[in-house]
């Protein structure tokens, strides 16, 4: 296979000089075309979000009447109404969500990477069985396990706290991420950790010194996804958080909805925009780590 032939080229370090001037013009032209396509796609992708932003400045009936994104009658009142419309200022719900998300991220990063390293690199008995069990836990729809789980946590006195939303993450219950990291670790050349082992590193040192730094893209992905999913997760937060002072953002947002009366669409959209900002910021920040993986340790 080609892979094995390229691997023999590990030592190659110089870039071959290519005649540049002639290809440059072609490259810029191609780059321009690419940008055009990417921008066009970006508009399609963004339009709905711009509409959401526009709607946050509109009155309820306009939200349902207009599908354009140009706002003629700016109504900034939605933001004030949304921020102060519930029992507590919306900032409290943002803080609550941030605490849950931070806990969940820490939990997933630690526990899932540990389990993933074991599954991907170490030999032990029942490995295949345990791995299969782990996959099976992803496959059962959460709606049928949430009632027994609720009963379990209520027995432990954890209702109305963030514990049922955070502690399980420290126990690697998000098997999705374990599997994700397993796949990434299996993509790391084994020579690297074999070398570390030969240098006398134990399994834990190999894990923390070699594997973890090399799987930064996977860790970043895990952090981003955990943040986004926790930030948007509605059902379990609805069930476990009871009193308004511990409500999270999705639960608070749904408080504006009234199936039997007036839904406060304006404030709902305004606060949806506000709630989206931290996620976007988190992504912008987190995706920088996507660029740093093994490629930086390779030869430039």
């Amino acid at each position, binding site marked *: 296979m080609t892979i094995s032939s390229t691997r023999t080229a590990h030592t190659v370090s110089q870039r071959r000089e290519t005649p540049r001037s002639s290809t440059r013009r072609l490259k810029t032209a191609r780059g321009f075309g690419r940008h055009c396509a990417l921008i066009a796609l970006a508009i399609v992708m963004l339009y709905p979000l711009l509409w959401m932003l526009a709607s946050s400045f509109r009155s309820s009936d306009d939200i349902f009447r207009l599908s354009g994104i140009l706002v003629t009658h700016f109504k900034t009142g939605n933001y004030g109404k949304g921020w102060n419309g519930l029992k507590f200022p919306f900032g409290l719900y943002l803080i609550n969500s941030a605490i849950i998300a931070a806990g969940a991220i820490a939990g997933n990063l630690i526990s899932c990477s540990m389990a993933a390293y074991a599954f991907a690199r170490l030999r032990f008995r029942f490995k295949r069985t345990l791995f299969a069990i782990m996959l099976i836990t992803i496959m059962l729809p959460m709606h049928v396990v*949430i009632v027994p789980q609720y009963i379990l946590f209520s027995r432990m006195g954890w209702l109305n706290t963030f514990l049922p939303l955070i502690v399980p993450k420290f126990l690697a219950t998000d098997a999705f991420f374990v599997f994700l990291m397993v796949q990434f670790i299996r993509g790391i050349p084994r020579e690297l950790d074999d070398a570390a082992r030969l240098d006398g590193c134990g399994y834990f040192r190999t894990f923390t010194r070699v594997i973890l730094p090399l799987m930064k893209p996977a860790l970043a992905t895990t952090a981003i996804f955990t943040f986004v999913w926790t930030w948007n997760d509605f059902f379990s937060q609805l*069930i476990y958080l009871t009193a308004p002072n511990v409500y999270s953002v999705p639960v608070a947002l749904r408080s*504006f909805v009234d199936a039997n*009366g007036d*839904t406060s669409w304006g*404030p709902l959209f305004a606060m949806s925009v506000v709630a989206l900002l931290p996620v976007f910021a988190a992504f912008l920040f987190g995706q920088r780590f996507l660029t740093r993986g093994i490629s930086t340790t390779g030869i430039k």
Partner: protein
Amino acid sequence: MSDVFSRRRFLGLSAMGLSTVALSACGSWGGKSSGSGSLRAAWYGGDAVHTALEKVLAHYQSTRSGQKVGGEHAAFADYWSKLSTETAARNSPDVMRMSMTYFTDYAGRGALLDMTKYIGKTIDISTMEEGVAGSGVVDGKRYGVGQSSIANAVFVNRELIESVGAKVPTADWTWDSLASWAKAVGQSSNGKVAGTSDQSGHLELFEPYARQHGKSLFTTDGKALAAGQDLVEQWWAYWQDLRAGKGTPAASVTAAATGFETDPIVTGKAAIDFGWVQQIQFLQGLMKQELEIMTIPNLPNGKPGLYVDSQDMWSIAATSTNPDAAAELINYLVNDDFAIKTIGVVLGVPPSKHAVDLLSLEPKSPAGKAVAYVQGLGDKAATPPPPWPKGYSQLSTLFTKISQDIGFGRSTPSKGAASFYSQSKQILGA
């Protein structure tokens, strides 16, 4: 050696963990509640409801030293998922808002407390409208206290009707006259405005229709439909005829109406609309043209199909550790002047004459019109039916689904009625 040991330890650990989980999960089915001095009160609604009730609870606590009440709220659909989960764990709120749609599901299965002993003592219902006062009773036991008066009604957009050159129907209208009128409106506006919204999927309106035919919707034990399959078929055939004659909007327009904002009367696609009377407030809030209220059509010599009762109630959990305090809170919510004034009309038309007088609503306001309608029904309204049986929510969803099948040409009124009838046996009989 160490392998065996570690495996045994692992197995032991897992067995221990599993049995703990199993025990704690099963134990709760035995049932006991976590007791504490304070009350939990839960309700569904939007932010207007939340704000009003939080204010009322705060005032209640300030007037009664030592009594703590924690408010919990959710949107309607979410509320029920949460409440059933809490009920499964024997952890229901002490006081809860209960909708007629799920009332018997809870009351009939022992989740709610029989409040009979509080009525007339702790909880005063003497000033309530008759139908409202009688709501919340199952098999002679009281599981809920009504919090609003409700009745079916028709909302009319006079301006729109006149703009297409038609006349507003008069109060003595019949289903047949509605049909010919609605089709005429649709045709004169070239299908742009239909006479009425399509009600084929609303079981809540089919009930008064059946009563006008002298039939109850359900048998007295609630285990079967009392209205016959032929009547269901007739209902769906009636609306199919209207749909075909442009008397109602197209099926896809009806299916798109998932809330007040998309309701055909709000979007100007229908000139009249059916609904629960208090909904005029929400519809009117989204429209510029003024809405009027009418009674629903009848048969030429039909029986009164309408009724006034309460579809939303306050109930106490059977597992509540402090039912006396819960009953006191409910009395406060329905009778105290501050509570009445603060709640206003956010929970619907107030349940008692006293509350209506206290609010002294502007008669031209949407809420004022709703109150006037309920009070003016007189002999057009008959005794309310018993609470909807277990499985009502499922049945009502099925009714809507089959009506859509018919609307989109995937079924026929006769096939749909047969299917509804056979499935209803399984749903209600269970």
